[in-house]
């Protein structure tokens, strides 16, 4: 899922400062699950802004849509959105841009910092587990992604900074991805997979290759 985090209130405050009425729009998908921009967070942010701009006459209201990245879900909010000076979107970057595309005349602000594709390690703690590189090699690395989980995205084993299974970049919080891969392969009895030297990665399928698109001709209308 996409994991995001709410921006500091001070930053959000500066964004909405020039506007008299702002609609806060939450999203019921990924950012609900990662507790950043669901209905509860939308209501909360609304209340906080009301208090922050107390006695200024500014109006804050909130609403929430199923999936903000889909125009059909955003469309029903048209009246509400047009009745406000600005929209504060609590969706991921994709959701924000859907609203922007839909309502070009209204300023739309992102209330979240979209972080990564990840999963919860425990309640309240999420970690990046997929870099979306466009060319998956999990089957060769014991199901642990070296792109996302090695701080240096190395493809052929760890660097010299792997100490006691921890990564030199942040030994306290980050495990060495390659140690994890090695342990996992050893456990599975498939260490021979490491014999294969991986060639330099073709990053063109990743973010470095320009704007990516996925096209499924068979499902296009």
């Amino acid at each position, binding site marked *: 899922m996409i994991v995001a985090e709410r921006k500091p209130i001070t930053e959000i405050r500066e964004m909405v400062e020039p506007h008299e009425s702002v609609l806060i729009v939450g999203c*019921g*998908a990924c950012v*609900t*699950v990662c*507790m950043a921009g*669901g*209905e*509860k*967070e939308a*209501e909360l942010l609304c209340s906080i802004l009301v208090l922050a701009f107390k006695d200024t006459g500014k109006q804050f209201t909130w609403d929430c849509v199923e999936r903000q990245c889909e125009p059909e879900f955003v469309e029903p909010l048209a009246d509400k959105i047009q009745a406000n000076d600005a929209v504060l979107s609590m969706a991921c970057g994709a959701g924000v841009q859907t609203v922007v595309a839909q309502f070009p005349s209204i300023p739309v602000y992102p209330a979240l910092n979209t972080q990564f594709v990840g999963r919860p390690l425990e*309640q309240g703690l999420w970690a990046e587990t997929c870099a979306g590189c466009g060319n998956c090699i999990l089957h060769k690395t014991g199901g642990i992604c070296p792109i996302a989980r090695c701080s240096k995205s190395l493809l052929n084993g760890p660097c010299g900074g792997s100490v006691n299974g921890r990564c030199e970049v942040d030994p306290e919080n980050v495990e060495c991805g390659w140690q994890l891969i090695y342990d996992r392969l050893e456990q599975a009895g498939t260490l021979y997979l490491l014999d294969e030297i991986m060639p330099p990665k073709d990053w063109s399928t990743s973010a470095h290759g320009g704007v990516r698109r996925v096209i499924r001709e068979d499902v296009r209308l």
Partner: protein
Amino acid sequence: MGHARNRESDGTIKKTSMSRRVLVVGGGVAGIEMALALAELRCDTTLVEQGTSLGGNAGALCSLYGFEQTPEELIGKKVATMRTNPGIRVLFEAAVRDVKGDVGNLHVRIEACGKVHESDFGAIVVATGFDLATGSPVTSGEPTAISCSELERRLAQLRAGNGRGRSNALSVPRNVCFVVEDSGVDSAVHAASALKNALAVQKLPKRNVFLCCQNVNVAGEGLEALYREARASGVVIFKFDGDKPQVAAADRGFNVTVRDASVAANDRCNGLMDLHCDLLVLPERIVPGPHTPYLQKLLRVDVDSSDYFQQNNVWLRPTASNRKGIFFVGGCRGSFDVCDILTEARATALEVYTWIGRDEIPVSVGKVRVDPAKCAVCLTCLRSCPHDAVEIVFDGDIGGKTAHIVESACHACGICVAECPAKAIQMVAADDLQKGMAIKGERRQVEQWVQN
């Protein structure tokens, strides 16, 4: 200040059919008493015992303090009563393999003697007792110290053989010393059982018995009398504080050096007592039963900081768990005094009865409700519910999965309501249930209080 608090007013009462059967896990003294007490209330009881006989740890002892009967007599009598009761079924060599379903109707798979039994139970009572840790000997090589249970076995043999003969004199030699340190939740029972055994040895002819302990446990029925009797009959009791007694192997026995608080250090004496004994008796550490982690996971219940069942929370005392319909009795929750365990078991039986004794049990429903259309199935409620009352189910109306509150397990604490990031869970009041509307915000009784 009209501060009325009516717990049941905010939920309608629905009758849910409950299984009237109770599963008791463990055939020690707690499990036996539990089954008997439930039988008195005409609850259908299945008792599973991992071994081939009933009685557990208490049954292995040769005497119990506070009781005139031997454990054999006590348990024998109870087991005989159990046998004649058609409401009690005992499965030997049995283990609980799986538990599914809701509180009130727990579907349990039991394997006994290679056969699989499956049934629904309204309640489960865990009475799996404790385990004795076979600790390392305090001294290396010969002679080795023995445990209290080993001493009990020797005493039983002596009794059977009338206490004559050389081997008997060897098994419980002339000078016996007990050393008991405070160790944890089991401290009290160690001190009491050392006292009991010290007296038993002292009663043999020509024995000298020393008991070194930190605190004599007399907080139980008849224990102070036992303490006085032991002292009066010649058991020498030393009480030490910070300094633990030093034990060293010496000359076919042990030298024990103990600092007793009542022995003053002066010019002639450094305050230390040197004892020589032929036999050193140390209580073995009591630890949670070996199946505790397995059952903990299977039953989704809590343990305390010493890994015994039951979180140390005043609301759960004496025997409740974090899940409705699941109870802990006796050694498995860190309760070791037989007298207390019998009382605990009976008290729990009544609780079980009020939970499942009637054909149907009123369940407050609708206090907490999930809106499936809003639920993002993020699992937050499932993870944060302290009573394990949330499950994920398929909802036909929305054609997908949603969180669902198991009404019989729910305590309506509202923690999930507060945690839900989608605001999909609401507290609902009874009146509004009929009107089909939630009364968020007004759900609480609000009143004005004037602070001084």
